[in-house]
């Protein structure tokens, strides 16, 4: 009896979490004529809304931009953060503890404080409407450094020494010993970074104005808010679907890491 109530609550909650997305997918597939109210399966499905999105806004270009930005940010965060994480975990040098303290401190700075000066910096660098503006300020993450350091610290020093004896330089040790041994950490850092970068909307809105340089969330926001969608619900939902499909695919693929990685670090965007 008690179990039944439990399931009832959980199912109701789960439905409320999933339903909006189903509705969105449904609306995006419905023909333009009957957008608005209506029940499921009331009409046949069509891709015309998706066609319309591609016709009305350069969504293909936005997808490309988002992919370039999110992938290069992710690659850079993984590479540089693991580099620093390795140095902090396994190399001895003067100032190591200071650097580590700085990493921890930067995590405490509210982003709102540096947002405007960062924007002015981008303007001065002449990076407005360019990929560097979207990538460079997020190339290394303190969160990534921290995760890598914690992971690397538990890898025995023996392995480093063995690798050095066997002829590895430090970079080689990082890439061919530490990386393969820290796959969960790499995946965690990777997906958190990818997700944040893919979904980020405030920063692109600040540094990108040209339509060809817009990322997906920005494009869809301006499309929706700017009224370009002409109030066509189906088209708007189709555009939104295009934004969430890649992240949903990544989610389906890495589900375990997604949830556990994020839970273990307690960090998100």
């Amino acid at each position: 009896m008690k179990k039944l109530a439990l399931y009832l609550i959980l199912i109701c909650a789960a439905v409320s979490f999933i339903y909006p997305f189903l509705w969105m997918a449904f609306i995006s597939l419905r023909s333009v004529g009957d957008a608005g109210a209506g029940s499921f399966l009331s009409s046949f499905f069509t891709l015309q809304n998706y066609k319309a999105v591609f016709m009305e806004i350069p969504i293909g270009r936005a997808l490309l931009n988002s992919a370039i930005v999110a992938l290069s940010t992710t690659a850079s965060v993984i590479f540089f953060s693991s580099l620093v994480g390795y140095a902090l975990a396994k190399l001895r040098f003067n100032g190591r503890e200071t650097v580590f303290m700085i990493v921890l401190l930067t995590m405490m700075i509210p982003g709102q404080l540096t947002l405007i000066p960062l924007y002015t910096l981008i303007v001065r660098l002449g990076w407005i409407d360019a990929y560097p503006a979207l990538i460079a300020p997020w190339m290394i993450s303190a969160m990534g450094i921290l995760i890598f350091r914690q992971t690397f610290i538990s890898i025995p020093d023996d392995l480093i020494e063995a690798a050095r004896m066997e002829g590895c330089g430090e970079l080689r040790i990082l890439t061919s010993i530490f990386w393969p041994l820290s796959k969960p950490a790499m995946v965690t850092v990777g997906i958190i970074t990818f997700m944040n970068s893919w979904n980020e909307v405030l920063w692109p809105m600040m540094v990108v104005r040209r339509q060809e340089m817009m990322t997906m969330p920005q494009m869809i926001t301006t499309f929706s808010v700017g009224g370009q969608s002409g109030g066509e619900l189906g088209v708007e939902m189709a555009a939104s679907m295009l934004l969430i499909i890649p992240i949903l695919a990544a989610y389906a693929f890495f589900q375990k890491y997604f949830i556990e990685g994020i839970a273990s670090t307690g960090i998100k965007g």
Partner: protein
Amino acid sequence: MRTIFFTILFLFFAGSSGAIELTYWTSSNPEEIELGRLLVSQWNQSHPDVQVKMQPIPATQSSEEVLLAAIVSKTTPDVCSNILPAIMGRFTKSKAVLALNAFPDYEKVVIGRTGSKLADLFRSRDGKLYQVPWKCNPVMLVYNTAIFRALGLKPPKTYSDFSKAAETIAADRDNPGRWAMAVSIKTTWWQRLFDFYPFYVAATGGRTLLCNDSAAFNGPGGVAAMTFFRDGFKKRYFPMLGFSGNIFLEGKTAMDVAGPWAIKYYRRLKPGFEFDFAPIPVPDSYKGPVYTYGDPKNIVIFATTKYPKQSWEFVKFLTSKEADLKLLELTNQVPMRSGIVSDPFYGGFFDKNPLLRKAARQAQYVVPMDESQHLVQILDIISGQFEAAAVYAVITPEKALAIAAKKTQALYDYW
């Protein structure tokens, strides 16, 4: 095949022989892009040594923002024809634009075309002219002639007329739920250029928002205009909801506020739709010509140009008699050319397009916006107070305008 080859060869040599290239930015609406393409190709054919490259300003952001960003990054074009005069204050302050007085034939060209009365409106505070007055879109009342005919209405001239018309529309049993006029409840600053501001200009007989760096809008005219909207929302003449799509085109409202640029837009979206323009309604006590906001767009030459002379020649070409006709034909916007209504050169066009004759007549009674670095913020302040006093009616129009005036004052006091 061979011709293509020679053409390429020619272009190659032409290019390498040092033909000057000018960059020209236009507005991004399809009509103006078409106009730009036509004029640029004409120019390029007749001027092989000065080639112009045209580029529409990206559509998603406001042109002002794009231009400001370009100034910051020093990537401004040579010539731009989509300049909101109100924003010129910041352009001149940052020395981003050329003073056109420097060109010897400037008087002849600009004053000769626009007339000194209108041209003076765009004169900068230092007495120089940095912009060539180009075209305007007098903001007017546009009404659905089918509905008006069916209900036996005439376009309202005064607020009382408007009320009566609105009551008639509301009482129409065949079309329940139809509103009198579409007014946006969004608070984006430029929305007020299509409701409060033109009504304010009309009610004050052509005054602008500011006078000597101080708010001028909280006088009787401003209160009258604000009260007009407050009453309209209160009596449900205007729909009080965020709507998508164009409800005027859909026949859900009988009137809208728009400029002549809308003619092409309406015809494209809904062929056969019947509409007409009328002056903005004024308070019952108002006498005199009805002014409105002209929504002017001007042409400037940016200081980054390497070829001021060639740019100036191109600007003259853009504002020539023939170009102005093309402007009328392709975009249905009104060149700021004095005497255009009576000029037989354009007579044929106006005969075919009586709506534009109306717009061109109205164009004689237009004002721009004030040239102020705070203009956007002042409109934003007014917009917020419009929402409070008119849309939600939580404070009186007098109070709202007083607050807006005070906030405007604070801007000048602090910055």
